[in-house]
C-alpha cells in the first residue's frame, strides 16, 4: 500500500451499553479505493459516521494525511470542519436539496470558497467584491462534474424531480464539488440496476484517476470486487479481515461471517 490518506487507530464507539464498533484499526491508501464491507449491523455506518464527524468516537484516533500537510485528527474537529479538512460524504438515504436545481446543489457544495469571495456577504450585496468571478469559476467546476456524472442536460431541473439513479450520481457530484481528498460513499450502488451500477463503477474509477481517494460501504459485491484496491471487513463491530479483494474472498473468517451461506454468488462476482 502507498502512503495512507486515512489512518484509523483503535476506534471504539459505544452507545450507552452497546458497543457498535470495537477497537478497529485500518488504513486507507492514498489514491486507492477502499471498500468497507460486512453483514447488516456490523458497524459499517457507525464507523463511517465517526470518520465524517457525525459521531464523536468514544475512543481512538482518526488521522487524515493530506499530501504536503501535517496530519489532521478528525475526531477533534467540529462536524462542519471535517468537510473543510477534505472529507466529503454521501448518504445511504439520499440527502440532496430537493427543491433546488442540480446546479444550485453543486454551488452550495462550494459554499465556503464562494463565501470567502463575498467579503462577509456585505461586499457582494453592494456589488463591490470579486464575487462574480468566483461564481463563474464555481459554475465551471459544477459543469465539469455535471458532465462527468452525465447530468449536464438536467442542470436546471430540481434535484427532487430527478430519477433515483441520477440523484445518486448528483450526490456524488455534489460531494466532489467540495474538493475532497477523501470521498466517503455510503452504499452508492443501493437501488441501482446493473447498467447503472456499471456506470457508477466507471465514475468511481474516474474519480480515483484524479487522485481522490475513496472509502466506500457497499453491499453489491460485484462492484466491490471489481473496483476496490483494498477491502476491510467488519463483523459485530470487530475487524475480521483487511486485504486485497482476492485475499478477502479467500479468507475463511469472511466466508463464515458474510459470504458463507452464499458462496456461489461470491464466486460468480
Amino acid at each position, binding site marked *: 500500500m502507498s502512503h495512507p490518506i486515512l489512518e484509523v487507530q483503535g476506534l471504539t464507539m459505544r452507545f450507552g451499553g452497546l458497543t457498535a464498533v470495537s477497537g478497529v484499526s485500518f488504513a486507507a491508501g492514498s489514491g486507492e479505493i477502499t471498500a468497507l464491507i460486512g453483514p447488516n449491523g456490523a458497524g459499517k455506518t457507525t464507523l463511517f459516521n465517526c470518520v465524517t464527524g457525525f459521531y464523536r468516537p468514544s475512543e481512538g484516533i482518526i488521522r487524515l494525511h493530506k499530501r504536503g500537510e501535517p496530519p489532521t485528527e478528525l475526531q477533534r474537529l467540529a462536524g462542519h470542519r471535517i468537510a473543510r479538512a477534505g472529507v466529503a460524504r454521501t448518504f445511504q438515504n439520499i440527502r440532496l436539496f430537493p427543491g433546488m436545481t442540480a446546479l444550485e446543489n453543486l454551488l452550495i457544495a462550494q459554499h465556503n470558497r464562494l463565501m470567502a469571495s463575498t467579503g462577509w456577504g456585505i461586499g457582494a450585496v453592494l456589488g463591490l467584491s470579486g464575487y462574480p468571478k468566483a461564481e463563474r469559476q464555481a459554475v465551471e467546476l459544477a459543469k465539469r462534474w455535471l458532465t462527468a456524472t452525465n447530468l449536464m442536460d438536467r442542470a*436546471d431541473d430540481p434535484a427532487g424531480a430527478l430519477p433515483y439513479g441520477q440523484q445518486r450520481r448528483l450526490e456524488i457530484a455534489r460531494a466532489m464539488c467540495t474538493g475532497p481528498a477523501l470521498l466517503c460513499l455510503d452504499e452508492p450502488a443501493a437501488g441501482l440496476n446493473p447498467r447503472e451500477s456499471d456506470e457508477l463503477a466507471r465514475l468511481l474509477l474516474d474519480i480515483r484517476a484524479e487522485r481522490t481517494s475513496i472509502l466506500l460501504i457497499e453491499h453489491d459485491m460485484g462492484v466491490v470486487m471489481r473496483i476496490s484496491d483494498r477491502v476491510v471487513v467488519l463483523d459485530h463491530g470487530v475487524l475480521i479481515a483487511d486485504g486485497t479483494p482476492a485475499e478477502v474472498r479467500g479468507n475463511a473468517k469472511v466466508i463464515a461471517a458474510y459470504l458463507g451461506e452464499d458462496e456461489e454468488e461470491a464466486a460468480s462476482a
Partner: protein
Amino acid sequence: MRLQLALKDASIGAVVAALLFIPLVALRTDVGSAGALVLRYRWADAAILIGLVFLGRLALVLWTGRTGLRPSTSAGPWTQRLQQAGRLAAPAFLAFALVLPAIPGIDRYWLDLGILVLTYVMLGWGLNIVVGLAGLLDLGYVAFYAVGAYSYALLAQYFGLSFWVCLPLAGILAAFWGVLLGFPVLRLRGDYLAIVTLAFGEIIRVVLLNWVSLTGGPNGISGIPRPSFFGLPFSMAGGEGTFAGFFGLEPSSTHRVIFLYYLILALALLTNWVTIRLRRQPLGRAWEALREDEIACRALGINVTVTKLTAFALGAMFGGFAGAFFATRQAFISPESFTFIESAIILAIVVLGGLGSQIGVAVAALVLIGGTEIFRDLQEWRMLVFGGAMVVIMVLRPRGLVGTRTPSIALGKRRAIDGKLVGEGHG
C-alpha cells in the same frame, strides 16, 4: 345521477353550515333596557346563510364535479398566467406605490393606510428571510419590532439623538438581540424553536411593561420626535428653517405624511433589495439549503449555527428598522402595540403569500392589512370574511399565493420549481 350526488353533497354542506351559523348568527345576546343580557333570535339571517351555502355548493358541484377544486402547489396553466402577469405586476405595483401620493383624490386617510400596509410589507419581507428562506419558524418576530421602536424612543428621549442617527442604531440593536436569542435556541428544531421564540416575544413585552423607570411601563413613551427632512423639520408654523419655508410651500400637515410614506416605501424596498441580492449569493443559497436539509449542509462544511444566526440577525435588523419607523410615525409607543397578535399577523402574511416569495408576501400584506381596513364597514363580519378568505386560500393553495420557487441561478432559462419539492424547514 349527478344531480343526486350534488344534492347530497350540498346537503352535507348545509348541515355543516347550520352547525356553524346557528350558534354564531341565530343566537345573539344584547344588553337589554334593564342592563341585563337579553337573548335575541335571528333565525331568518341564519337560514339565508345556510341557504346560500347549500345553493353555492350545489352550483359548484354541478359546475365542476366533486373533485373540481383541488389543492395545488404546482405551476399549472393558471399559475403560469399569474406568473406572466406577476412579471408585469411587480413593476406596476411599484409604480403605483411611487405615484400614490400624487394621485388626485388620495387624501390623508389613504396615505395613512398606505403607510400601514407598507409597514407590514416590510415586516413580512423581514420575517420572510427567517421563515421563508432559512425555514426557522419564528413566532416572536414582534420582539424585534419592539426593540427597534423602543431603541429609537429611548435614545431620542435620553440622549436627544435624531431619527437618522437612531435608525441604523435601532437596526443594529435589534440584530444584536436576534443574535442573543439565536445562540441558545438555534439548536432547537421545529415546534421547540417556535415555542421558545414565542416566549422570547412575550419576555420582551413583559420587560417593557414592568421596567417602569426606564420605559414608562404601560403608560408608554410619548413625545417621540418626528423625523426631519434632512434637518428641515415639518412645522405648521412655516417660516425659515422649516420644510415648507425652505421650499416656499404652504405649510400643510400632509407634507409629513407624504414624507413618512416615502420613508417606509424606501425602507421596504431596501429590505426587498437586500433579500433579492442575498438570495443569489452563497449566504442566501445556504439559508435555502438549510431549509431543505440541515444534515446535508453540515456534511458539505457549512457552519449551520452561524448561517442560522445571520438569517435571524438580518431578519431582526429589518424588524428593528420598521420599529424605529413605527415609533417616529406614532410619536407614542407602549407595550400594547407589540402583543403576540402582531407576530401572528406578520407570520400569516408570510405563510399566505408563499414562503420565500417576495411578491406573494407584498400581495398578502396588501390583502390582509388593506382588506381589514376597507371592510371596516362590515363590522363584526369582517373577521368572519377574513377567516373564510384565509381558509379558502390555504385549501386551494396550501403553499401560499405563490407556492413555487424560482431558482437563484440557471444555465438556461429559469423555470419555477413546484412547491411540493421545496422544503418547509424543520426549525
